[in-house]
C-alpha cells in the first residue's frame, strides 16, 4: 500500500513506543498490536519488522529474553535503559515533525 511508505521511516519509533507502553512483546504480537490500534489502517510487514527489531537490538536499544510457550521458544523484546532514553528523543522528534507538517499542509492565511 502506498500510504505505508509514509510510515516506513517511522517504524523504529512505532516499535519503540509500543514496547515502551506494553513492556515485553514478541514479533507477531507487535504486528497484531499495530493492526489493532490503527483499526487495520497500518499493517507492518514481517519483512520490515524483523530487520527493524534486529537493528534496534544490535544498537543496544532493545534486549531479548526467551521463554517457552506452547512447545516452542518465544523471543521477547524489551527496552534497555538506552532504549528508553532514545524513545523519548524519537517521540519528541516525531511530535515536532507532525506539528511542522500540520503547519505546512494547513497554512493559516492572514
Amino acid at each position, binding site marked *: 500500500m502506498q500510504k505505508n511508505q509514509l510510515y516506513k521511516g517511522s517504524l523504529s519509533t512505532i516499535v519503540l513506543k509500543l514496547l515502551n507502553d506494553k513492556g515485553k512483546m514478541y514479533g*507477531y504480537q507487535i504486528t497484531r498490536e499495530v493492526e489493532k490500534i490503527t483499526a487495520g489502517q497500518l499493517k507492518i510487514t514481517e*519483512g520490515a519488522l524483523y*530487520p527493524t527489531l*534486529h537493528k534496534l537490538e544490535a544498537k543496544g536499544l532493545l534486549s531479548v529474553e526467551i521463554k517457552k510457550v*506452547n512447545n516452542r521458544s518465544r523471543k521477547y523484546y524489551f527496552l534497555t535503559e538506552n532504549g528508553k532514553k532514545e524513545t523519548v528523543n524519537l517521540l519528541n522528534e516525531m511530535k515536532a515533525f507532525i506539528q511542522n507538517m500540520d503547519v505546512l499542509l494547513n497554512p493559516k492565511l492572514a
Partner: protein
Amino acid sequence: MNRTVSKKETQYLFEFCRRHYVYHYDLQVELVDHLASAIEKQWEIDSELTFENALLNSFRKFGIHGFSKIKEQKQKELRKKYNRLLWKYLLEFFGWPKIVMTFAFTIVLATLFKIVGNDLWILVPYFGSMTIFLFYYYYRIFPSKFKVSKVKGKKFMLLDRLKDTQFMIIFFTQIPFQAFHFWNILKLSSIQNTAGILTVSLLIVVITIGIYGELFYVPQKIKEHFREQFPEFAL
C-alpha cells in the same frame, strides 16, 4: 480450546526454515514462533484449515524475498554490533588513566627503535610472531574457547559471524608489512627522525590494543549476550 501447533509441527517449521536457507537457531526460533502464532490465529477463525495451508498463508506474508532479506539484514546488523563493541572498548582504553599506559608503551617501543637502529629487527619478528599467533588463535584457541561452529548441535548466527570477523584480523596485521613496501619505494631503510619513530611506535601499540580488543574483549561481550539470551545453551 483453540488448536495449537504441536511439537511435531514445530519441528516441521524448523525444517521449513532450513529449507528456506535459514540455518541459524537464533533466527529460526523467532521465525518458527512467528509462523506458529500466525497459524494458530488462523485456526481461531477456521479450525478445519490444514496445517500446510495455514503455513503457506503465513509464509506468503513475508513477501517475495521470504526469509532472505531478514537473514541478510541480521548479518549486517551483527557486523555493526561487533564494530560498535570494538569502538566502545577502544574509547574506554584510550580514556584516562589507561591512555598513560598507551603512551608509556609507545615511549618504550620508540626507545627500542633508537637503540636497535635497524627497524626491521623489531618489526619483522613482532608482526611475524603476531601473524603466527593469530593463526594459532583462530584455529586452536578460538574454537576451543567459544565453540562457535555448533552448540548442542545448533548453529547460532551471533557466534558464527563473530568467527568471520576474527579471521579478518589476520589480514589487518598485514598492513604494516605493506607499509614496508611503501618505505622501500621511498628508499628509506629506517625510520630516522624522532617524530617518525614515535608515530610508528604509536601505530604499532594502537594496532596491538585493537587486536587484543577484537580477540578477547568483543568475543567475551558476545559470549555474555549469548548467555543472557540462550541460558540453556550457555557456553
